[in-house]
């Protein structure tokens, strides 16, 4: 004890040590091994050797460009859809929720309490060929009689939208809830119409939530493979499906690791570009 008293500066490091060591060992070091594996060649039979196999990368890009673009496209559309659903919903809860706010918020996070795979299987059920959604759409003529939803890109995007919607809604809610309503009243007192008050006051003030929400939705959505697997067909395969099958089924580790590295770098680059575009000072606000 006296040692600690004499070296008080050590206390924070002692508190940090176990947690930080764990994360370095099982988060940072694995990233190094991911890069290391991505330059290996071989098979399960003969083993894998590190030989700067850069063609893992060139092959990955040339053979799976389609799945990469599809992942970004699906994730982008789903993020936009989640924003369009979440914004009015969280606006309603934040400004009209009154004393029911916490309860209504519970509805938003409730999907998280149903195991991810089970709620995706429920969507399989809802969108199925003899399900009521398809029947209703066929009845009003939006879908042809032999058309289907399940096993199409619509189903995959719908599933991604649903599964990651709370990631969008929660930060949006937090930033809308913090808005001082007297600012909106002031705008109206100064003869701004409701629309104008929204566009000039509420929307800019909620931007940190929009930015955080889009990032938190887009990142996991781009790497997802569950929705494409359960609600789509191989024709809707995303990059996550390729990585998953190469790691766990085909044991093509070098290629799979290269694809993971590319996914990580592409997502990082998009985040940096996006935050540059919208301004990081807003993210901090």
């Amino acid at each position, binding site marked *: 004890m006296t040692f600690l008293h004499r070296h008080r*500066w050590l*206390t*924070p*490091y002692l*508190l*940090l040590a*176990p*947690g*930080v060591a*764990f*994360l370095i060992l*099982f*988060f*940072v*070091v*694995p*990233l190094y091994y*991911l890069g*290391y*594996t991505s330059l290996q060649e071989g098979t399960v039979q003969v083993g894998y050797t590190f030989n700067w196999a850069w063609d893992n990368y060139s092959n990955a890009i040339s053979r799976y460009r389609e799945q990469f673009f599809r992942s970004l496209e699906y994730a982008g559309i789903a993020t936009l859809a989640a924003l369009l*659903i979440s914004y*009015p*919903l969280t606006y*309603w*809860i934040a400004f009209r929720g009154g004393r029911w706010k916490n309860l*209504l918020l*519970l*509805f*938003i*996070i*409730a*999907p*998280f*309490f*149903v*195991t*991810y*795979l*089970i*709620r995706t*299987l*429920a*969507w*399989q*059920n*809802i969108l199925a060929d003899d399900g009521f959604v398809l029947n209703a759409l066929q009845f009003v003529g939006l879908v042809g009689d032999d058309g289907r939803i399940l096993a199409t890109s619509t189903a995959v995007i719908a599933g991604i939208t*649903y599964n990651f919607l709370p990631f969008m809604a929660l930060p949006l809610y937090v930033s809308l809830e913090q808005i001082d309503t007297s600012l909106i009243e002031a705008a109206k007192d100064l003869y701004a119409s409701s629309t104008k008050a929204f566009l000039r006051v509420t929307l800019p003030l909620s931007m940190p939530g929009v930015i955080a929400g889009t*990032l*938190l939705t887009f*990142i*996991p959505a*781009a*790497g*997802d*493979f*569950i929705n494409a697997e359960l609600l789509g067909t191989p024709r809707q395969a995303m990059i996550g499906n390729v990585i998953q099958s190469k790691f766990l089924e085909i044991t093509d580790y070098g290629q*799979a690791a290269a694809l*993971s590295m590319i*996914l990580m770098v592409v997502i990082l680059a998009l*985040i940096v570009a996006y935050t540059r575009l919208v301004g990081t000072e807003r993210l901090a606000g």
Partner: protein
Amino acid sequence: MTAAAEPRALPRRRVSPLTKAWAFVRRHTLTVFGILALAYLMLPIAIVVIFSFNDPAGRYNYTWEGFTTKHWAHPFGPPFLGDAVGTSIKVGVIATIVSVILGTLVALALVRYHFRGRGATNLLIFVPLTAPEIVLGASLLTLFLNLGTALGFWTIVIAHIMFCISFVVVTVRARLVGFDRHVEEAAMDLGANEYVTFYRITLPLIAPGILAGALLAFSLSIDDFVITSFNSGTTQTFPLYVWSQAQRGVPAEVNVIGTMIFAVAIVLMVANILFQWRRTPKGAVA
């Protein structure tokens, strides 16, 4: 004023119900949208619960065939399902305990002390929260592959502790930031040493934050599929069991267990909300 204000003289205009309904909708668009959106969020949950009572004719639990409670009587009936749920709970408990201890210590250091390397530590905590799960799972797998570690129960536990720590840090830190340090100083002034102060004052005060972090860690652990699938070997957790059955038709017992998990989580959340309501004095900002 009441009698005079009655619009007796006005002629009754004939308004079609449709116009009335439209006027109502326009006035309440936001409310209507909000309720529809909530219904959309609840729809799959309702399906899961309803189909736990279905009596499917074949392997596929897709169409409604008739009401039964037999799946609720024997939720662990199908082979391997009980083992998978048991593994999930074991992994969840271990991962929660370890990540809560490690995460709380990190949160204490980050909030209480100014030290060199604070920014780097924040970054180390923040990045796993934003990295795609598939990258976390894949990179951990490459570590185990290169080291020749056998995949199984303990590699799942390691993976779960890894992704839970950051969530615990964030949750506990939020609680610590609003902490009144004068209470601790008062205890010290009254002769308590640092360790007594920690156990008698600090720990009870941040306990709600630690509990919230523990609940979050446990629910993340029990729900995780992506990272687990990369590091499980032949060990099966509950989500991995569901995945393995997805092609062949998931038994209705899975819906029963899904409903149970949902019910427990909702009860805990509602209890938490009620608890906060009681603790927050009337008129105070929560």
